[in-house]
């Protein structure tokens, strides 16, 4: 994996940790003897009566998680309490928990872009601590069954910190009925096609219907869903992976933002104030024909209680840009808080291991979660039932876990992009001057972080 941490002094420790992790992984592989001797109930016996607190989000995968928690509680006698946050508040809540030395949360939910922050501050425990303990490690965990890009996303200095849960790829959701009515039998495969060929035919402003909607609310939605998507697809990137020199005002980045601005005529007005929920609703109510959204929102769009377009819903890979870059990539993992007492850490690991297990994955998918398990995601019966699985799995084969940088300075960088990115999109700041400001400020952040000498 690529390591983005600049400090070479950690290499020896990283090598040792890697060896420990590999040992742990090896210990976790199913062996006939271990498989016969290990059970969740036995492993959890010392922790019966323990209560752990786990962070969850107000998104579909966590509804599925909550529905399955009683199974775990019944088997283990461990009580799992959940605390729900909207995405935009989760990092703040968890960080304040850590810096105040609190043990309010035992199970830490980490977006892949928080991996560097949490690991660098030693707020989370390396997984090898648990996978190397035969009493805790389920021999059937089978780490090789996870998509490699997802395991890599939660490594820091080559040490594994989390097991993936709620794993996304950016997908093109489209209303096949509207497309058919406009004379299209298949969705667009490139951004140019979406704008020039599909856009005009699917936009009818007087009827209040539009071809496409791009969630662009200021915050991580602006940075990830709106800015990064067009940055990479048109040849830009965050920074040079070797020198860390920012590339946010490069010709590719300018082209990407110019293209994004050119989508305005085929999008509903006020898109800069729309978050995931609003854009998904626009699609669900038949007001827009296409959106590019995370795989997790398939559940909302396919639910007859929340969607009018269920019978017309179809999913495809994201349109490609001229740079044919890797598609939008994002998602979460559960980690164990280093500030929890040992017994709670062990109980939390047992919960995380169970939640991310091969056996639970199909149940989670059936209840609306998205998981990064090869066995479940490529199961023919599930693929037939859930059409988002095929394009999601296909895109993960060439996804980049550093689609957004995972360094500890990312939250600051994201704020800069969100600040100027939405002003650029509104037109209150020119594209080139805006990108120059972003580039300069991010260069300052990377310099003070020790990345640029």
């Amino acid at each position, binding site marked *: 994996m690529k390591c983005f941490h600049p400090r070479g002094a950690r290499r020896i420790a990283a090598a040792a940790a890697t060896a420990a992790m590999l040992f742990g992984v090896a210990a976790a592989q199913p062996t006939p003897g271990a498989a016969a001797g290990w059970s969740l109930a036995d492993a959890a016996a010392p922790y019966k009566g323990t209560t752990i607190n786990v962070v969850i989000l107000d998104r579909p995968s966590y509804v599925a998680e909550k529905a399955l928690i009683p199974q775990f509680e019944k088997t283990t006698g461990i009580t799992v309490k959940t605390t729900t946050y909207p995405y935009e508040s989760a990092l703040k809540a968890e960080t*304040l928990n850590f810096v105040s030395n609190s043990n309010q949360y035992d199970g830490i939910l980490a977006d892949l872009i928080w991996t560097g922050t949490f690991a660098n501050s030693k707020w989370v425990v390396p997984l090898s601590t648990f996978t190397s303990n035969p009493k805790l490690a389920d021999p059937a965990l089978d780490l090789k069954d996870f998509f490699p890009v997802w395991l890599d996303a939660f490594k820091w200095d080559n040490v594994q910190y989390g097991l993936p849960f709620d794993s996304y790829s950016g997908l093109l959701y489209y209303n096949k009925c509207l497309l058919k009515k406009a004379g299209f039998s298949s969705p667009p495969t490139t951004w140019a096609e979406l704008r020039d060929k599909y856009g005009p035919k699917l936009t009818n402003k007087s009827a209040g219907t539009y071809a496409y909607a791009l969630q662009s609310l200021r915050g991580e939605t602006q940075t990830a869903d709106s800015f990064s998507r067009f940055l990479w697809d048109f040849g830009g990137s965050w920074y040079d992976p070797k020198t860390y020199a920012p590339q946010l005002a490069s010709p590719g980045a300018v082209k990407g933002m110019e293209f994004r601005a050119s989508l305005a005529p085929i999008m509903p007005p006020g898109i800069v*104030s729309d978050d995931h929920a609003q854009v998904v609703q626009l699609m669900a109510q038949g007001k827009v024909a296409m959106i590019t959204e995370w795989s997790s929102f398939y559940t909302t769009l396919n639910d007859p209680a929340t969607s009018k377009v269920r019978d017309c819903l179809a999913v495809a890979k994201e349109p490609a840009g001229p740079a044919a870059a890797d598609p939008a990539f994002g998602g979460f993992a559960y980690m164990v808080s280093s500030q929890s007492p040992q017994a709670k850490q062990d109980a939390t690991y047992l919960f995380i291991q169970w939640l991310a297990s091969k056996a639970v994955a199909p149940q989670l998918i059936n209840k609306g979660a998205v998981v990064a398990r090869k066995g479940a995601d490529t199961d023919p019966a599930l693929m037939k039932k859930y059409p988002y699985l095929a394009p999601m799995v296909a895109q993960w084969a060439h996804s980049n876990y550093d689609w957004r940088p995972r360094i500890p300075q990312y939250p600051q960088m994201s704020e800069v992009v969100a600040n100027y990115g939405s002003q650029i999109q509104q037109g209150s700041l020119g594209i080139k001057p805006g990108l120059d400001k972003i580039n300069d400020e991010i260069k300052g952040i990377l310099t003070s972080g020790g990345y640029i000498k």
Partner: protein
Amino acid sequence: MLAEQQRAQPALSLPVSKRERRQRLTPWLFLFPGIGVLLAVGIYPVIYALWASVHKVDLVNLAAGTPFDGAQNYFSAFLNSLFTGAVARSLLFLAISLPLELALGMLIALYLHGTVLPRVRSVVRVVLVIPMAMTPVVVGLIGSLVFNNQFGLVNYLIGFGHMQSVDWLGNSQLAYLTTLALQVWQWTPFVTLILVASLATVPPEIEEALRLETKSWLKRLRYVQLPFLLPGITAALIFQTAYIVKLFDMVYTLTGGGPGVSTELVSIYIERNAFRAFDIGTAAAQSVILLVITIVLSNLYIRFFYVEAEA
């Protein structure tokens, strides 16, 4: 003689002196929990903010230490166009919403003080409390639904008049005006209630006498009611200035500071800086600047508006 003995007794008797000390201590014991809470939630955070404002405090990199940084955080704040822009937006918000709240509040208060039947007055007073009783978060959430471009109630009603829907929250200027409108809607009743209470202090015989002298309500307001209203107006100005300068919840749930930075008031900007970028040092310096602005404005109000009325 007896009185002298009684006066001398406490000075000579040790147990009485102890009792006196205990009596002197009693009020402090009652006050202690309140003072303790005030110190913990009011004074300590201010002291911490002052300390953090002159140190480099990066919440996600505390391992690097918190070195003394002099006035660097203050320089950064003044040189940051996003912060100065947010301060300007907040001051403009204050300059528009405060006079509106005062004018509307005064009109309603005078109406309630005038000829309205006592029963109607009681009902209106209760109705006035409803917007204030709602938490700002709920006001923001309701606002985001009511003013939603595609599904909102306001655009739905506009549709009956065959007018084009309006992008209330997606257009920079309209989003700012919508936020202002919600602020004025929620807090005009507060100003009204303060002014109604002030009007109740006007001696009825003076009002009666002036009513016989002149029919002009403007003269009554200028020469009799206004002197009694000034302390209430000053209180409303101070409360509302402090509230608007730190206004966060309603705007956060309504627009999140967007679109772009068009509704990013200074408190929202500082929160982002502190808890998204985790730059506590700079955010603390910006908070101190905000505190100074509030204190200066409050002193100006007291200097120019506050006059004790004499009946």
